[in-house]
């Protein structure tokens, strides 16, 4: 038995040694300091970071999170002093409310002018006066459907309640997105705090539950590509990618209106490297860099100058990536509903889920 312990130790040792040798060539700090960036997972072209480091001599310590909600407690607790984060609309509002962000000095980010005026207007919903947020990516939430599996053209959220598609529907597994769908079907605002409206939405979602194949966040892509389900609720940024993988898929913004979301760069209140953070944002707003990121992550860029650079006409004029929002009604952006709002929505969601 001793032998086997020895053996396993040898195995471990060998692997540790080989690993340390493999990674011996890791990078050291930059000559012009560092910037701590905290972004969504897979939400940047890694090459752009390298280019930034080369051009500016600033080392980027890059970290990733999975959801806004996972990011928030880490930043709030001050466990790690990041300089830059990239939260979504309602989370930015929450962070402003809780005094976690600092105002942006626009003079230091000249490239921010490449970003279309309409996105700043949209941002006012969660960042009045455009003080804190520089738009990075945006999109809509809509229905992705498989043309070979549905009989009629789809243009409404109500299809998610059609019994024909029992066990063929993929619903978003996040509170606000799920409620957004139900509230829109009922013709209410997706930022509703009205008890009666929310109860009605809850009843609607409970009614829908037997038809739903699964509540998913991320696997909706793979499941739709694989033909597991006919209809799924998805973010527009994923639509281009899924269509490329499976041409039978079609994305539509439902006529009842939907969520227009924006993820933006924000500098944290206790950032240590404000200057470098500004340089980083400015770099990300450069048209060629924004284009690289758009091509890498396929989420719509608010950078008008970058959009002009897109070579493929189909994509530059894609109504999925760059829909003309003026053609749709009842578009909204999530706003932070305060702690009571969070609690109310979450309790209702639990009731739906435990049905």
């Amino acid at each position, binding site marked *: *038995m*001793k032998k*086997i*312990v020895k*053996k*396993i130790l*040898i*195995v*471990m*040792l*060998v*692997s*540790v040694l080989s*690993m*340390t040798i*493999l*990674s011996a060539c*890791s990078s050291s700090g930059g000559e012009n300091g560092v910037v*701590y960036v*905290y972004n*969504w*997972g*897979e*939400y940047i072209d*890694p090459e752009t970071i390298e280019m930034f480091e080369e051009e500016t001599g600033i080392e980027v*310590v*890059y*970290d*990733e*999170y*999975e*959801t806004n909600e*996972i990011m928030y*407690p*880490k930043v709030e*607790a*001050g*466990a*790690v002093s*990041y300089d830059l984060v990239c939260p979504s609309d309602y989370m930015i509002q929450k962070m402003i409310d809780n005094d976690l962000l600092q105002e942006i000095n626009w003079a230091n980010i000249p490239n921010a002018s490449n970003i279309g005026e309409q996105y700043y207007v949209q941002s006012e919903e969660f960042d009045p006066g455009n003080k804190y947020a520089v738009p990075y990516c945006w999109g809509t939430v809509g229905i992705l459907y498989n043309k070979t599996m549905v009989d009629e053209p789809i243009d409404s959220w109500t299809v998610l309640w059609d019994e024909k598609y029992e066990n063929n529907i993929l619903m978003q597994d996040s509170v606000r997105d799920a409620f957004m769908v139900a509230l829109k079907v009922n013709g209410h605002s997706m930022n509703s705090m009205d008890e009666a409206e929310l109860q009605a939405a809850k009843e609607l979602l409970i009614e829908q539950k037997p038809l739903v194949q699964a509540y998913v*966040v*991320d696997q909706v*892509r*793979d*499941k739709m*590509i*694989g*033909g*597991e389900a006919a209809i799924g609720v998805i973010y527009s940024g994923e639509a281009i990618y899924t269509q490329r*993988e*499976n041409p039978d898929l079609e994305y539509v913004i439902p006529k009842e209106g939907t969520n227009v979301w924006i993820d933006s760069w924000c500098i944290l209140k206790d950032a240590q490297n404000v200057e470098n953070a500004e340089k980083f944002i400015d770099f990300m707003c450069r048209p060629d860099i924004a284009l690289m990121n758009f091509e890498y*992550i396929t989420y719509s860029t608010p950078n008008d100058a970058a959009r002009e650079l897109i070579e493929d006409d189909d994509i530059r004029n894609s109504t999925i990536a760059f829909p003309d929002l003026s053609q749709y009604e009842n578009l909204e952006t999530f706003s932070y509903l305060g702690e009571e709002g969070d609690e109310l929505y979450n309790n209702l969601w639990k009731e739906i889920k435990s049905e």
Partner: protein
Amino acid sequence: MTNVLRKIYVALIFIFLYAPIGTLIVLSFNASKSRAKWGGFTFKWYAELFQNEAIMQALTNTILLAVLSSVIATIIGTVAAIAINKMNRTGRTIWMGVTNIPMLNAEIVTGISLMLLFITVGMRFGFVTILLSHITFNIPYVILSVMPRLKQLNPSTYEAALDLGAPPLKAFFKVVLPDLAPGIFSGLLMAFTMSLDDFIITHFTKGPGVDTLSTKIYSEVRKGIKPEMYALSTLIFVSVLILLLLVNRTPKDKSKNKV
């Protein structure tokens, strides 16, 4: 007959445990980025894997953490198990209870409470904080593995060694430890495994730029797992398997004569 049945049984469980691994290996050769579609056979993910510095760095961190935390936890845990076993009934109940706490808590509770602890003490988040956390949740696995062996242990052999004039330490290493070895070994193995796999606790106790494979994989979930990860899993699996086979084939293999 029973022999055949036994083999079939072992084989069935084997298939059950390895079916997903097989799937991962197949996916690593899939030219399509999507898990759900077969896009033809390719080696390109393997090539891209080695150019991906972030993944390689995460791999190093993961293995270093797993080895360090499991070895330290095994030492602390084994010593603790022996000490707890010798305590009176009350002491034993209390400390076994404490031992079970990290396992009782939902991982997320452990993760967040450790994060709060490190903030209160003012520790810098980084490799060390992850290591401390991993050791913490690994110790119980070691104690729980060693305890059953200790309970089976015949105390008279140790006493006999002492009576025969062996110094306590020597008696311990010569008599007690070999008996405990299988328990210690499986504790080490479990600790190593738990450390490799942990995501939630690592996430809340890690510092910026320090990633493990788990935290990398989870951050990829939103945009889809990169096929490089399948390739890496395949490589890890195959290399560990080969290493195990090699180590087991070392000389003095008596089993051949036995057959």
